[in-house]
């Protein structure tokens, strides 16, 4: 699988991650057929410490899904940041993952966004598989 980020998408994710550092940011990804065309930042409502966790509440998820129709695209996944941790999914990410969604992770070191990766849950939920990420201009 491969995921192509449309113009401005990567930059929007990076900026969101830098802006919420040292806390995690999160948001929705829209597009179709392996192309992300838009993002939508969501509030991180975790009560477990936003430096290491993010949570999109059900009502925000519903809003994010409803928004897909507004932008004329499908909800294709979510992004979040890992402040001062590598852009690799944690066990916690795996335990909470949904199938078919692309999960983009951006590592933010000391406030500066670095690596960005994208992951998909394996069918049997046993692991994430990294998907190739390319950035369009």
């Amino acid at each position: 699988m491969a995921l192509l980020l449309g113009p401005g998408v990567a930059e929007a994710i990076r900026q969101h991650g830098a802006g919420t550092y040292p806390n995690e940011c999160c948001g929705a990804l829209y597009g179709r057929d392996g192309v992300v065309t838009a993002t939508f930042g969501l509030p991180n409502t975790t009560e477990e410490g936003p430096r290491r966790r993010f949570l999109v509440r059900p009502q925000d998820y519903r809003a994010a899904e409803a928004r897909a129709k507004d932008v004329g695209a499908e909800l294709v996944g979510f992004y979040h940041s890992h402040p001062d941790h590598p852009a690799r999914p944690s066990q916690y990410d795996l335990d909470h993952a949904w199938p078919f969604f692309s999960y983009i992770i951006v590592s933010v070191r000391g406030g500066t966004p670095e690596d960005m990766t994208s992951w998909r849950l394996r069918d049997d939920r046993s692991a994430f598989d990294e998907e190739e990420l390319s950035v369009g201009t």
Partner: protein
Amino acid sequence: MSNTIHIPTPLRPFTDKNESVQVNGSTVGELLADLTKQYEGLRKHLYADDGKLRNFVNIYLNDEDIRYLQREKTPVKPGDALSIVPSVAGGAPTSAVETELPTLTQEEIKRYSRHLIMPEVGMDGQRKLKAGSVLCIGAGGLGSPAAMYLAAAGIGRLGVVDFDVVDFSNLQRQLLHGTKDVGRSKNESAKSRILDLNPHVQVDTYETMLSSANALQLFRGYDVILDGTDNFPTRYLVNDACVLTGKPNTYGSIFRFEGQASVFGAPGGPCYRCLYPEPPPPGLVPSCAEGGVLGVLPGIIGVIQATEAIKLITGIGEPLIGRFMIYDALKMRFRELKLRKDPECPVCGTNPTVTTLIDYEQFCGIRPEPQTAQTTGANVNDWEITPVELKKKLDAGETPFILDVREPNEYQINRIPGSTLIPLGELPRRYQELPRDREIIAQCKMGGRSAKAQEFLKSVGFDSVKNLRGGILEWIDKVDPSQPKY
């Protein structure tokens, strides 16, 4: 009679792309059972292995979360609509070791059995230790017990940063090194001792001085940083680099009979600069080399640091975050001070002014050594003299007044012939004893205290005062090797 279930985007591939599905039943549980019967692929995403709904799967009956109704037993009426609404959650590993913990071999299980039988540590904790890494700044008094206990406890990877060689004066407290290691690189000596204790530990040594140029990169590769340094520039450097990389700093320091320990730079906790925003004036706080240290003291403090590192990595207990421990060996007392994160802190505050590593020697007011004097032996300034130059002066028949500002017990160990002892602390009330018509050469062990003495004497009107560079240690090295060093 059937009810509608709304399917969220990520589950639609299992329902033939349908956004909603018709199901039958009289309770929420029955509707869901019918759904998974029709679309078997949904089951593993909705239910955990124990048959319960996954906690990030929310079921809404009309607009009400079934957790606030009767959960899966909630009865449904005709026309009620059910929605499956995902909570999307995730996050970075709580510590970098959470992902893919390594397994333990039979031999390791035997070795760590006293850990494994305690539920607080257990297999999971031991595997976290194996996946964990600690970077020891310095393989000296604090680094020795810390590294040895961490190694024995089963830490997976231990980094050691040191550039010194083992000296006889280290052996009184630096247990990583033995008598046979004198003259050997501390890193090499440390590595062989650690591997002897536990060959399962990966030991990475860095034969370098920790600096603003290498600290961030080094720290990023470790879970916890253990500060075993003995000087202020490195202490501030370690603190700032820990805050900037988000790594907790298990801090310790020792002097004479007193030790301190804390955990700085942990998420939400204070850093060293919240406690001490500015370093003390240079020379005011003597180092262990100048003031001495009880040999067993680093054993206590270094082991506290190792304990905190183990707690941080395994996630057990109450870490020493926001608490400052002070230990007095003579009174045999521990005291604890509360520390608060300073919102004005220049490094970890809300509007930090230090966002990158700086020149810490300069920050701590330490004068850079004049390069030319070292290479040529020539006296390039009027405030400093080298031992070789002093020897030449004496041999030429000059009679400078050599002022030794050390303590009497140091003077008993070694001295420059003809020197006069007035300890630095007594100088303000005894300086009248000094001759005004002779050149004064101030001298101590290494040149720090005598620089203070020189500054003081100039302030009270002595014009011709020079500091003996490198103190009596350099005198012994360059002029008189027959005397003992300490």
